[in-house]
């Protein structure tokens, strides 16, 4: 039996492929949107994975440095070690900075940690050039995408920092690139007031020049065999601090912080899928309208509806499949050019494929309806 869909597509192959490419680009954007969401989830977990801490100890009644302002004393890292079950601790600072670059400033999150402490914040697997921090002052490890090279000098505050290491794939939960400086430098950058400010404070009767022995969080690892919730409870009770387990911190990063952004992306994705469905439906409707004379003739000479409907449905499905293939290729082609991480996952692509197929079937109903209502008498009388 002659396959009408195959013949029709062969006849207008160029037009069909261009149409599929157009719809495919739209589907590619849908995949990119999903990829941006996945990228946000991955970004949010990078610091957690690299620091590999069991507990995050932050200022009481706050959610910690990623969600709210948090300040605790640095020396807590020592007293926390005395709590039963705590193995290693480290004091950390997190600070947004604009690194001065040749063209325009690069926005980064600076992680301050003690290079000689128990926990090193730099994941050696991500270090692609140079080395980690080896001194207490004026060294900086930057992310590759900042554009700085080994040996470059970056001026921060009143001091010059030398780039001693380059990392790859290190970003904060918001997608900003990470740089690493020593805790002492980070504390100076974040908490030390300028001379003018100190003089002004003194004139107001305020003593001191800013407490530089503060940090944003203390992280701790536990000795084997200790229950993380029990240890967290102890710290909360005796030290009047907020303590989050790794799982809770994960929830803060992936739910609290990016919940609205992910909902936003979800809305965009849903709208794009809907628009794609409408466009496929319109294309099929137009393709069917273009063939109405032929459809009327086929009905008039006795070709059954099933054969004509089969043609419409097959063409719609093929359009959907081709558009998906183009869209998938398109998304992989452009994913690397986005400023933020885009993670394209096969299950997401398969889910979209299923949605496209269902959408195509719905879209074909419009064409099928036209076929059913096509008047064979329209073929007679010119």
């Amino acid at each position, binding site marked *: 039996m002659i396959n009408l869909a195959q013949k029709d597509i062969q006849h207008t192959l160029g037009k069909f492929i261009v149409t599929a490419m157009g719809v495919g680009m739209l589907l590619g954007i849908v995949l990119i949107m999903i990829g941006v969401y996945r990228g946000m989830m991955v970004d949010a977990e990078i610091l957690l994975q690299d620091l590999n801490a069991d507990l995050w100890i932050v200022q009481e009644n706050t959610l910690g440095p990623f969600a709210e302002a948090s300040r605790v004393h640095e020396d807590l890292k020592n007293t926390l070690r005395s709590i039963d079950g705590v193995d290693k601790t480290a004091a950390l600072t997190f600070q947004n900075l604009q690194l001065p670059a040749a063209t325009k400033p690069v926005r980064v999150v600076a992680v301050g940690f003690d290079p000689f402490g128990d926990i090193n914040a730099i994941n050696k697997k991500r270090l692609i050039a140079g080395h980690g921090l080896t001194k207490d002052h004026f060294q900086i490890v930057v992310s590759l995408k900042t554009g700085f090279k080994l040996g470059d000098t970056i001026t921060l505050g009143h001091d010059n920092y030398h780039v001693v290491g380059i990392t790859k794939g290190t970003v904060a939960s918001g997608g900003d690139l990470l740089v690493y400086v020593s805790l002492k430098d980070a504390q100076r950058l974040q908490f030390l007031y300028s001379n003018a400010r100190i003089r002004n404070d003194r004139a107001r009767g305020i003593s001191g020049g800013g407490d530089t022995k503060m940090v944003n969080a203390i992280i701790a690892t536990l000795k084997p065999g200790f229950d993380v919730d029990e240890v967290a409870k102890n710290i909360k009770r005796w030290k009047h601090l907020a303590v989050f387990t790794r799982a809770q911190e994960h929830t803060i990063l992936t739910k609290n912080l990016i919940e609205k952004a992910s909902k936003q992306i979800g809305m965009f994705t849903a709208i794009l899928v809907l628009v794609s469905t409408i466009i496929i439906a319109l294309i099929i409707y137009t393709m069917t309208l273009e063939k109405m004379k*032929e459809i009327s003739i086929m009905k*008039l*000479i006795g070709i059954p509806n099933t054969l004509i409907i089969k043609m419409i449905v097959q063409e719609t499905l093929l359009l959907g499949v081709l558009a998906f293939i183009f869209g998938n290729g398109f998304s992989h082609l452009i994913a690397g050019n986005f400023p933020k991480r885009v993670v394209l996952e096969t299950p997401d692509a398969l889910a979209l494929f299923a949605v496209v197929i269902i959408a195509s079937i719905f879209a074909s109903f419009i064409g099928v309806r036209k076929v059913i209502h096509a008047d064979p008498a329209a073929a007679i009388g010119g």
Partner: protein
Amino acid sequence: MKKQSIRVENLVKSFGKGENFVDVINGASFSVDKGELVALVAPSGAGKTTLLMMIGCVMEPTSGQIYLGDEKVYDGQWLAKDTRSIRREKIGFIFQAHYLIPFLNVIENVTLLPQTNGLTKEASEAKAMEILEYFDIGDKAHAMPSQLSGGQNQRVAIARALANSPEIILADEPTAALDMDRSTDVVKMLKRIAIEQDVAVIMVTHDEAMLPLCDRVLKIEDKKVISIKTADEHII
């Protein structure tokens, strides 16, 4: 004695109700024999196409009877559940323009209906080639309609109408888009088909020059159909 292929009795077709009521055909009765080429003439709007659509089981009459071959297909209502199967099995249609399916080549256009009727691809193609050769367009079997001239396309359209071995051919102004020479060729071809294939052919036409080539003329007059011999004058 020739066997009747089409018989119409007291056929009525009206549209609308009340003030909008219009009866286009009112009590038309006529028959067409196998092997006969009959022209159907009438002024524009007199009901030629309506009558053709009723005989072709495309438009339902208001009342009357229609017989196609030995089968009564209409008697106040369609007697078959699926009028499309009657068209598929008994009737071949030829239109003003060729109306070939543009995305099918010549042989696919001709074999589409026989294959739908259950004939194998090989058998339908063999038969199609036979018909195409009959019309001297066998060498165009794999050409697309867009690659053929108007006359060649009209021949393919006639070949398509013959492909399902119909008992009746209904031609709706098949020469309207052709020049005089080609029109004459087409009508002669229809005459040849009527005789050699033993089918009844009704051809709607406005072209007086074609009437002498037909066996008979059916004229719609006062909403009825009258039969006139082609030798008579003042047909239209």
